[in-house]
């Protein structure tokens, strides 16, 4: 599903070179639920940006769904993001001036679906996250947990093969975090591949695999997630 070989990412300014990732390699199989942990500045977000085609890397090879995406144009990368990848952000990233319906509609419009198809998908995913009755509401009228559910609905609306979650519960209290994680787990159970960046070892323990990143490299190739969860617990 996802294969990164010797990926390096260097941020350059006039004075400084920062190596965010160094010879980073990772393979994720279809249906995996991988948690990515590591200290601040270790390269977690850079990895997520590269995995989600939000940023170009400096060196290495990246195949997504069997296709080399290293040399895609900006427009091609946008298309791949739109069709294959769903994003869940720490701050939800909902558009405050749009209703829940219009928020979920954003990626579907870029996909070019008909109005009827978009309506069907929007209603389906909002029902799925338990917000079908609040489609006309604005994000500001919802709690943090509900907003993240809308963001998940938006990510799922295009039926992506691959879901990237960046600290999806980072802005939520523990109750809401648990309910969002249960939703993410359900999505994985239905076959969607998930990579989740998190600080929280307990949440990392809910994934089937854990990757620990330190100084831009995979420091522990694979943690036993049950052990991680036990340590956290």
């Amino acid at each position, binding site marked *: 599903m996802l294969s990164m070989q010797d990926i390096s990412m260097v941020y350059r300014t006039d004075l400084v070179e920062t190596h965010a990732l160094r010879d980073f390699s990772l393979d994720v199989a279809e249906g995996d639920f991988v948690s990515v942990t590591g200290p601040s500045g270790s390269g977690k*977000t850079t990895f*997520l*940006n590269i995995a*989600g*085609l*939000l*940023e170009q890397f400096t060196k290495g090879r990246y195949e997504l769904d069997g296709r080399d995406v290293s040399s895609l144009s*900006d*427009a091609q990368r*946008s*298309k791949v*993001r*739109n*069709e294959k990848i769903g*994003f869940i*952000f*720490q*701050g939800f*990233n909902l*558009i405050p*001036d*749009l*209703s829940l319906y*219009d928020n979920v*509609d*954003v*990626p579907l*419009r*870029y*996909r070019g679906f008909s109005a009827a198809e978009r309506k069907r998908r929007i209603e389906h995913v909002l029902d799925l996250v338990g917000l079908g009755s609040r489609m006309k509401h*604005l994000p500001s009228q919802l709690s943090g947990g509900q907003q993240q559910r809308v963001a998940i609905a*938006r990510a799922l609306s*295009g039926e992506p093969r691959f879901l990237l979650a*960046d600290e999806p519960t980072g802005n939520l209290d523990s109750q809401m975090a648990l309910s969002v994680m249960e939703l993410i787990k359900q999505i994985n159970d239905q076959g969607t591949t998930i990579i989740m960046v998190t600080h929280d070892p307990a949440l990392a323990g809910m994934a089937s695999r854990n990757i620990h990143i330190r100084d831009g490299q995979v420091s522990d190739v694979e943690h036993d997630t049950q052990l991680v969860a036990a340590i956290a617990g």
Partner: protein
Amino acid sequence: MELGPIWRAMMRNKTGAILIALQIAVTMAIMVNAISIMQERSRMMARPSGVDEANIFYISSVGFAEDFNERVAIEEDLNMLRSLPGVVDAIQTNSVPLSDGGWSMGLQTEPGAEIQGTGVAIYFVDEHGMETFGLELLAGEDFSPGDVGWRERSDTEWPDKGIITRAMAEALYPDDPDSALGSTVYINDDEPLTITGIMKQMQAPWNGWSGVERVMLVPQHTLFGATRYVVRAEPGRRDELMPQVEQILADSNKGRIVRNMRTMEETRERSYRSDGSMIKMLTFVIALLTLVTALGIVGLASFSVSRRTKQIGTRRALGASRSAILRYFMTENLLISIVGVLAGGALAVGLNMWMVDAFDLTRLGWYLVPVAMVLLLLVGQIAVLGPARRAASVPPAVATRTV
């Protein structure tokens, strides 16, 4: 197209959009009416005076010596001027078109003090008048030497014939202008005067007068102390003749002064100088207003892009291409501009109706409002292009940044 979501999002955050739409509306109302005024002035300035402007100049002569004989001087001057090589013809007259000073009377088709006459500008000429001014006689005949008399300042009697313009014939006989030729009209309430000729066109001295095309030539020399000679030169020889004429007139009689020599082209320029200035000023106002509106659009769009950087990054992450982001901001501006130009169209028509009533201006040309709409929509799209391109260059990775 994302018209629905863009419109709904704008309606939830509409203060800036309303202000820009209002600015566009006001700009459009002023622009359309200013262009209409400019068109009216330009049309007025483009009207032909009816005379051979390129080759005519004139000069004034004022006798001051005790032994100055005005009638003799006029006869000698005209003989001398007409015999000069390069001169087509010359006359003595009281005024010229567009000079802003002249003589007007009322003509009526029936005698009687109670009858309202039709205003007409009077030029006193002799049998050389038509040739000197370069006028075209449509019907009837020119004056003969025997028709021409002499008029003192105190005289109140008028000659018994006159040549009028076609416009004056239409004003006197709206149902049958052709019947003007040979008809008797009345001047000074009851003095009869026969129309012996109809000329194609000649303008009065006053360009702003509604009856500027209503003119009558009467066959008289004037003895008013100050006089004016009009000289028509052969094509291309006017400028060479002017200093010669001035010198010869000054030298030929030391009992008078000659002054105010001017070409007809200069007279036209002076006559319409204020109109020309107004056109320049209105052009400047339109350009300034358009620039201010464009800057307003740039300001609002730039602010909007800065405020929504994260949102743009999120859209990019969700699959928006650069061109989709560019299109989003261009569409948003187009919607604001459409509201602005629609309101501006209504405002422009309303303002024009008021100005037609208050200042007797002409009505707007039907095409002005749509043309201004297209122009302002275009200005809006050009103005928003810079901020929209900046928005399109926001990288998708902004979506995952925490600030």
